[in-house]
């Protein structure tokens, strides 16, 4: 416990707040770029917890996992942005409300 400068509960709370902000961003934003950014926020909320608990338990595995998450997040951003470029070329906007071609 003494290894942490701030009490553990605060980390969890901060992570929860960040995650919730991400969720709200995904759910409310109409701009696809903001949605992507919100997703990043959620990933980083999780990363924060991983790092904290790695420290708490003295297990390096948590930090290693963070690197993986960062890698995947980078890939995801690249693919996501590529898709958005394609969408923009086709639709002229990145407003997700206008992407309704899957309507049955």
């Amino acid at each position, binding site marked *: 416990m003494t290894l942490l400068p701030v009490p553990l509960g605060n980390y969890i709370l901060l992570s929860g707040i960040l995650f919730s902000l991400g*969720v709200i961003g*995904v*759910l*409310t934003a*109409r701009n696809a770029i903001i949605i992507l950014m919100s997703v990043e926020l959620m990933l980083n909320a999780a990363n924060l917890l991983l790092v904290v608990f790695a420290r708490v338990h003295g297990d390096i595995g948590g930090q290693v996992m963070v690197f993986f998450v960062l890698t995947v997040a980078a890939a995801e951003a690249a693919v996501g942005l590529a898709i958005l470029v394609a969408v923009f070329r086709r639709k002229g906007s990145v407003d*997700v*409300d206008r*992407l*309704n*071609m*899957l*309507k*049955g």
Partner: protein
Amino acid sequence: MLPLLWTIPLWPLLGFLLNGFFGRRWGKKTSGLIGCATILVSFLMSVGALASLLSLPERRYLVAPFDWIVVGNFHVPFGFMLDPLSAVMILVVSGVGFLIHVYSVGYMSHDPDQPRYFSFLNLFVFFMLVLVLADNFLVMYIGWEGVGLCSYLLIGFWFRRPSAARAGMKAFIVNRIGDLGFSLAIFLIFWNFGTLSFIEVFERAPAVAAVSGGLITAIGLLLFMGATGKSAQIPLYVWLPDAMEGPTPVSALIHAATMVTAGVYMVARCSTLFALAPVTLAVVAIIGAATALFAASMALVQNDIKKVLAYSTISQLGYMFLALGVGAFAAGIFHLMTHAFFKALLFLGAGSVIHALSDEQDLRKMGGLKTAMPITYWTFLIAALAIAGVPPLAGFVSKDEILWQSFSSPIGHWLLWLVGTITAALTAFYMFRLVFLAFHGQSRYPSTVHPHESPGSMAKPLIALGVLSVIGGWIGWPKVLGGGSWFEHFLAPVFEGAEARLPAREATHSLGLEYGLIAVSIAVGLLGIGWAYQWYVKSPERPEHLRTRFAGLYNLLLNKYWVDEIYDAIIVRPLVGSARFLYRRFDLAVVDGTANGIAKLAQTLAATGVRTSTGRFRLGAVTFAFGCVVALGWVVYTFLRVSG
């Protein structure tokens, strides 16, 4: 030579493949050449085979290029057998077939589909040779079905004409009825004999007959049912007159000279089985005699030149069955051979006339062609004299033999002889009615038509067949007239088994009786010719007069006893009606209903489910998030409950 026996049918098959695949590219000339050359090779090989056969003491040669079916004890080689009977048949098939192929080159020269024609014709010869060379029932059945297929293809050769397409189907379907009997007979034979080889079946037949005679009778009747279909006998003869829709050389080859005689050949081949069951022989004789008379009566009044010949063919086939039925197997085959010569000649002559008059087949629009077409006229006249039974032509010898046998054979009957003799008179009459209407008197065709003699490729086969129609019968010249009955002796080894089963032929009939009957058969032939001369040359108004006086009888004959209509009413219509009923009530309602119902159900479910797919991204995201919260809440709740 003999080890190569199995290659005889292969030549026409090669011709079929070449013409079928490359005929169009290589052109008409080449396709005709291939068609004729392959048959010629087969014919020459057949002659060689006959020569080799004559030097074999046992008069039988078997060769099996490969095993076809081997399952446990059941073993069917793809075997061929050469014996005097099959030797006669392959010579007739390839010899007459070759002449008709040559004729076809001229006859079909204007048809753009000539390569298709020759490929089918070659395929037919292949199957026919397989049929007659087979050494077991199954290989014979291949040929049997194959010639039926080719008959269908060639009757419907001009398939753009609806009547030709219909005639082809009619021939095929009517033949299927007969084939059902043939295949049932093969099943019965296999079931009870355990083999399908001719030699083995005929060897064991007496033992089987001793145990159950009914079985042999059943097999014989079923085989004969197959024969009535293929050889156009009562009650399945109705397809042959319609088959005249095909090109005339096809009628000559398939529907006169060879395929329709397959039934005769088959009964002769199975003579041992038939001899073991006297009932079947009686049936064969009675059906044969009845068909001969019945068909001849219909030929009397037909106006289509080919229809006359078609009914004549049915009638002559009846003659052959009459001979087989009274145990005179050799006489039946002899008539088969001579008939192949003169009936092929009649058809080719008719084709020559039709060709000259630009596809006119109606006798009422012919007349006076004698001078314009001398070769056709003289050869046609020879054939007509031959079929009328005028000595010394081929038809006289074989027909007289049949009449004599039907009278004198221990299982013959004077009634059969009487029917045969009346038929002979009718035959002479209708054939000379045709000759006089077509070639004598005033021309009745439009003056714009200028008939001309056919080209050499058509005229030469006519001459060759004319020669055969004269001399073809001499090889069987009867003993009483100073001949040697050589043909009968040649075939004797084939029919030994059957002859041994039939009641012995006693020599009670005097020579005088035999001379008397010969005189009668010549007399009725001349009588028929004179009768036709009287009516159609001397006083042409007589037929007109009689037609109005006996209008009922005339219409009965002209409309072929309304047999087609009767069959239509009692068989075709009920069948089509019930099929339509089942189609509507069962196929549409039950089968389609079930299938469509299932599809409908899925469609309804999908239509409900599809509403969840709104395509709205944020709604989907909210739903997803809500689901996550619920799932997470559930996990937390259970965790707390377990730990708490």
